[in-house]
């Protein structure tokens, strides 16, 4: 990888972790989805940069499929299946307030970074930034899933975690069998479809999509 490409990739990785943190603190559901699209485009950009020198058609194909499935198909599916009223909604019932969420996200970023260093030493010739930022973003995605109670942000939390796993994946497994990569990429829109359908069912049967606040099935004492 040339120094210029490496620097550009570092910039992309920085923006990737910032976009993941931004998703956890953005209360408007529509805006949260737009940041997810940006995060997916950054994942694709990192795949293109890593695949440019030495050239890897595996990574270029993965980048193209990411743009298609996560930046085009998933937002379209969510717009069609989830009632418009939900996209406009501001989520005020987050489990943690914004400053606390930011603080925890920062702590998790450092923890993910520190854990990844342990692995980076095993193969120093790979892009260490992707591994570190991938682990950090994975933990921040988990935080997003934990603090949000609305269905769509919870789905975006799952998808953000998957993006984070693949940010690491494109660095550590650039030769991962393409057929499996393609299948995984097309598996994601199916996931979004099922989740959006379930959110729609929840909205119809309960009048809300605050699925994180549901506690009627807890074991009685």
């Amino acid at each position, binding site marked *: 990888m040339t120094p210029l490409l490496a620097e550009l990739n570092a910039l992309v990785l920085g923006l990737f972790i910032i976009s993941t943190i931004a998703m956890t603190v953005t209360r408007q559901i529509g805006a949260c989805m737009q940041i997810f699209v940006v995060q997916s485009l950054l994942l694709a950009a990192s795949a293109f940069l890593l695949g440019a020198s030495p050239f890897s058609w595996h990574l270029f194909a993965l980048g193209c499929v990411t743009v298609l499935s996560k930046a085009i198909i998933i937002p379209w599916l969510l717009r069609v299946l989830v009632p418009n009223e939900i996209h406009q909604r501001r989520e005020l019932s987050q489990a943690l307030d914004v400053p606390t969420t930011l603080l925890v996200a920062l702590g998790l970023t450092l923890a993910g970074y520190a854990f990844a260093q342990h692995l980076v030493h095993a193969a120093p010739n790979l892009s260490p930034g992707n591994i570190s930022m991938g682990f950090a973003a994975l933990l921040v995605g988990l935080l997003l899933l934990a603090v949000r109670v609305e269905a769509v942000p919870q789905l975006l939390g799952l998808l953000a975690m998957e993006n984070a*796993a693949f940010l690491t994946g494109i660095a550590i497994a650039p030769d991962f*069998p393409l057929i*499996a990569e393609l299948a995984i990429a097309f598996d994601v829109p199916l996931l979004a479809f099922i989740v959006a359908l379930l959110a729609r069912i*929840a909205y119809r049967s309960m009048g809300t999509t605050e*699925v994180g606040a549901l506690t009627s*099935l807890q074991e009685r004492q």
Partner: protein
Amino acid sequence: MTTLLIPAVALLAALWCAIPRSGRAAPAVTLIAALLAFLGSVRVLWMLHLGATLTIARGWIETDPLGAFLLVLIAFVYVTAALYSWGYLNVQEAPPHRVRLYHANFNLFAFSMLCIPLLSELGLVWIFVELTTLLSVLLVSYALTPQAVEAAWKYMVLTLLGATTAVLGILILFWSLHTTGSTDFTWSGLRAAAPHMPHALLGAAFVLLLVGYGAKIGLVPLHTWLPDAHSQAPSPVCAMLSGIETSVVLYVLLRLRGVFAGDPALHAGTWFAVAGLISAGVAALLIVQAHDYKRLFAFSTVEHMGIMLTAASILTPYGDTAALWQMLAHSVTKSFCFYAAGIALIVTGSRDIADVRGLLGISRIASAGLLVGGLAISGAPPMAVFPSELAILRAALQAHGYVVAALLALFIVVAFFGVTRHITSMLTGEPSVTTGRRVPTTCVLALAVTAVPVLVLGVWMPAGLAQAIESAAKVLGA
């Protein structure tokens, strides 16, 4: 090509059921597809027994005795659940389009599970494990009540969280394989390369995969989706989820154990034992304080997964044989339990243990089913689970795992008293209010068909089946 036809019939049945106006024929089509899948899977097992090699695409689709054994288990539960669904949905008085969509989804769920034992490439295995969740979520929410939606949501979020964790584990495993110069990302390729893989990478992959797939099989503390989903899903779906879906994912973990055991410094066996014993112990206590009889059987699944994982931790050929024997006994007995629970729900209209009293005076089928199921699943002789649990204890003692054997025996006894206490309270006393509904014939038939292995395998194991289990255990290579 017979192997590929097995999932193909389930997929074709799903496509048929998806066609509008196919509502009336959907249950029959599903049952025929399930029967064909079962006959096909028995044929595959038989061909392997005769020494045939079933490789469709090297490195991608290969079937060995372990895969064939699991295939037969999946297909058996698929047949009985399809039969049970037929009458069960009639009782629910579901409109034809919902019956059609249920069967389309049910066949797709079966398709995703039937593919897993045929695959040898780990990336594809991950995809189909994730598909088992995606294709069963809408079955869990079938009742469309707020509780059913809540259960489906929790099931989906927790298991997909596990899948995302597991995919990172798989990518790291691929990375560590790459460092050895190999590109054979199959079960056998990974096992061969494992001793040469970097310890740090293999350790990270192990933790991520154990946690990721642990969520799917209901290991404590990632088990919370299991009782919720099972209390709300239709009973035939519970039979598929509990009886076979958890076993399918456990199969993946057992295969991975062979890879991680290649690095003795990882102590994969110890981790399996700790995770298994904690799950079995916590589940035994949860069984004692259960209030809902469908949740009771779900906790019993958590206990059984813990027992099987502990058996796999012994790392001896006999331990593996006992684990697979338990998998067989669990699949048939747990599906039987949920069929009996479904019948009890039809006649009483309540899932609450405290609300159901004097079941003996209300329905002989429901009470006989719950009594036999409760005794069988908690390991009472002479039913299928008893000899398999005994074999696990023996395997632990043979390997000098006295503490493991003692703890397992204690948890099994606690669970036995928990299950039998609840079932006895439901059967005896003044009969509670009933719905007056008649139990559908197909539900009784499914219960009767499943009762055969539950009762027979406790006293007699056919030589062919015993040989199939031994051959399957050899593949695990402890």
